[in-house]
């Protein structure tokens, strides 16, 4: 019995220590983010005056698969972006519906005798079209190969030094490109830059432009608003300040074309191709001994739809977890690599311990504690104390993200929004976080066992879209 108690005490110390270290680390990142934000916001108007007229040309690469109904709206929204020099390359990734036909009709596409350059190998390209209405719009029609393959075909066609890669159904802020190229102008060593992605559910969008910001009514989407704030404003801003950012969101990322080509482009055989690319860029550039930056701007640049049902959310979270595992495993050479700086010495081990393995610890911790309590090895009050610590630390992190939001762009216009989000950060501890950990644990287990993972269909509601 004594041994059981010793083991239990050790396990308890382990779990408590893990949670405290995890939260203290995140809190540290949030404080770094706060410091960075203070400087950023102080100079944002001054920077705009200097940089508004300086614009690097950007290629927008938009992979599309079976988006017959929405592709024209998405492209029209992109054409409205407030930016001088950009081209749009839509890549029709072997759609089985009439996506290509919709594009041809809407934008008066005509076949173009492009001398297509295969810098990154992709599935065969059937043809390239150019719009007679919009000279900066081209469409690549190719055999189906997935988003990464389509992005690579777009990259082969891109003319400009930096390129944006995102989802066709994301809503971009009209000035997003102006903001996101700034790090490339400020520091020529910048190879990638991400920005804050927000949840579009609950907002009103007309013609691809956000008209009114609001909170979603769907509870699942609402829970994700807090998650996104925490992840983007707290985590990514903090990591980017020390050049340890390993993730640039697949919904919105801008990259230096030549560096990405040199690193081999997007990998079609991994699930989280966006994260994998960024981790690989770190590994590749560190190995080359090159000085570089992966940047992040806190400006809200992109709005994306959050899943509103459990099945879609579960599938998304499993994909993310699997993608995380693959990205870290495939680029394990980055860990503690010479010259890899914060990315290899801090961010990589952190992601392994506190992101990849966190579902194991969280679910394992809950199960062990519950078992110990059920078997009488632990008092009910002690069990409650551990739960309270885990919950309260989680709420503290979420509230820090709310403060960061208020210090930066205070996107949500009403004080009521803030209070609702605080309430959500309390409620997410009662089931939502545990469910997330469970899905991620399943994905982790499946990945370790080498199970294949279907892409699944992301169910879109698009109730926010006004015609």
């Amino acid at each position: 019995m004594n041994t059981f108690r010793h083991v239990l005490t050790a396990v308890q110390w382990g779990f408590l220590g893990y949670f405290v270290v995890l939260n203290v680390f995140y809190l540290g990142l949030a404080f770094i983010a706060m410091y960075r934000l203070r400087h950023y916001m102080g100079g944002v108007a001054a920077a705009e005056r200097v940089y508004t007229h300086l614009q690097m040309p950007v290629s927008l690469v938009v992979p599309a698969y079976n988006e017959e109904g929405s592709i024209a709206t998405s492209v029209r929204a992109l054409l409205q972006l407030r930016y001088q020099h950009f081209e749009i390359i839509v890549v029709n990734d072997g759609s089985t519906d009439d996506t290509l036909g919709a594009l041809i009709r809407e934008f008066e596409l005509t076949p173009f005798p492009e001398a297509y350059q295969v810098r990154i190998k992709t599935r065969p390209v059937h043809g390239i079209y150019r719009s007679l209405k919009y000279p900066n719009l081209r469409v690549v029609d190719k055999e189906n190969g997935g988003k990464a393959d389509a992005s690579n075909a777009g990259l082969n066609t891109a003319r400009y030094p930096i390129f944006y890669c995102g989802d066709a159904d994301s809503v971009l802020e009209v000035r997003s490109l102006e903001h996101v190229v700034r790090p490339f102008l400020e520091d020529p060593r910048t190879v990638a830059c991400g920005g804050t992605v927000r949840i579009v559910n609950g907002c009103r969008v007309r013609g691809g432009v956000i008209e009114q910001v609001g909170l979603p009514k769907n509870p699942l989407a609402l829970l994700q608003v807090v998650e996104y704030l925490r992840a983007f404003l707290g985590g990514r801003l903090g990591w980017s300040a020390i050049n340890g950012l390993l993730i640039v969101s697949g919904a919105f990322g801008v990259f230096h074309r030549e560096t990405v080509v040199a690193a081999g482009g997007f990998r079609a055989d991994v699930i989280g191709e966006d994260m994998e690319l960024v981790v690989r860029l770190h590994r590749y550039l560190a190995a080359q001994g090159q000085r570089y930056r992966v940047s992040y701007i806190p400006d809200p640049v992109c709005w994306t739809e959050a899943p509103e049902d459990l099945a879609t959310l579960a599938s998304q979270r499993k994909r993310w977890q699997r993608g995380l595992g693959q990205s870290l495993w495939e680029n394990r050479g980055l860990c503690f690599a010479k010259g890899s700086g914060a990315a290899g010495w801090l961010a990589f081990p952190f992601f392994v311990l506190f992101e990849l393995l966190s579902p194991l610890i969280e679910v394992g911790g809950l199960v062990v504690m519950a078992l110990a309590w059920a078997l009488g090895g632990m008092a009910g009050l002690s069990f409650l104390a551990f739960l309270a610590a885990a919950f309260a630390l989680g709420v503290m992190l979420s509230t820090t993200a709310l403060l960061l939001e208020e210090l930066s762009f205070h996107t949500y216009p009403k004080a009521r929004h803030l209070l609702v989000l605080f309430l959500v950060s309390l409620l997410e501890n009662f089931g939502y976080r545990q469910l997330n950990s469970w899905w991620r644990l399943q994905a982790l287990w499946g990945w370790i066992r080498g199970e294949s993972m279907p892409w699944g269909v992301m169910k879109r509601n698009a109730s926010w879209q006004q015609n």
Partner: protein
Amino acid sequence: MIVTLAWRSAEVAALASAALLLMSLLVRRYYRAEARRNERVVALWRPLLTRVALESGDPPTLPRLPGSNRPYLMEEWNALQDAVRGDTGERLNAIARSLGFDVAARRYLHSRQVGRRILAIRTLGQLRDPSSWQPLQEQLASTNSLVSFYAAAALVRIDAQRAMPGIMNQLAERESWPAEAMARLLVDAGADVAREPIRALMLSLAPAKIPPLLPWLAHVDAVLGSEVAIELMRRHANDPHIVSAALLVIVDPNVLDELARFAESKDADVRQSLAVAYGKLGALRDAPAVAHLMCDRVWWVRYRAGQALLKLKGMNDDHLEAIRGHLGDVYARDMLEHVRAEAASR
């Protein structure tokens, strides 16, 4: 003990959460109040400042300006100053001095807020106050590139000639200044002032620093940029980075024959830049050289050569057809089709 620690952690975190929520609400309230105050200042002062700007003669009686409102008015005043020229600016400066902007701006220079510091620098630059020279020089050396950029702009406004040595030193050291904006600033100040210091700087720089500054120099003065580029290209003919950058800014067609040797460079960037140079400066007689580049193994060289071919002085469809007939390389022919279709769709 561990249970007590867990409870304490929970308590601390819960208290911290409540405090953070309160702070968030206060921050929101503060920003709201600030926005309202700004609106009030603008509503009261914009008509007055506009009157001062538009009408010569005695300035109107000004209302009292509380110190807390001064930064908002300074922003408004700077925006108006950016939009006016000549005597109007002087009248606005007189008003600013009577409102104590010069003294306040010198105080703001020590602010920890970047925005406030930049506001101060802009104000001192607009006021063209020589007594601010030393504090602005200190800001020029700031690690924050925006602060140093604005300080450079302010110094140029006060005395462009005197500002040049300090700015040139910074240019040689910094990689983070927005080069095009800097070029615009020097052009506005009068490129004559900058010509000689820039030439001296460029010719004395270490080779690694030259390529990013050459395009910038061409923005300041295209002819000077070309002269310096030719000189640097001759000096560093074996440095592909310098040659590649130089080829892009040369505007003297007389050196085209001298450039032709770079067609055999091992560096694709050099060959690509050469193609661009042909497009900018070349004529029909250069068509064979450009056609040769269209057979390059690198796509971008073929693409730029194709574009150059279309731009050669005197080029027309008949010539293009003739050239197409002589192109033995299938990739070169494809590229010619590509660039012709591209040009037709513009």
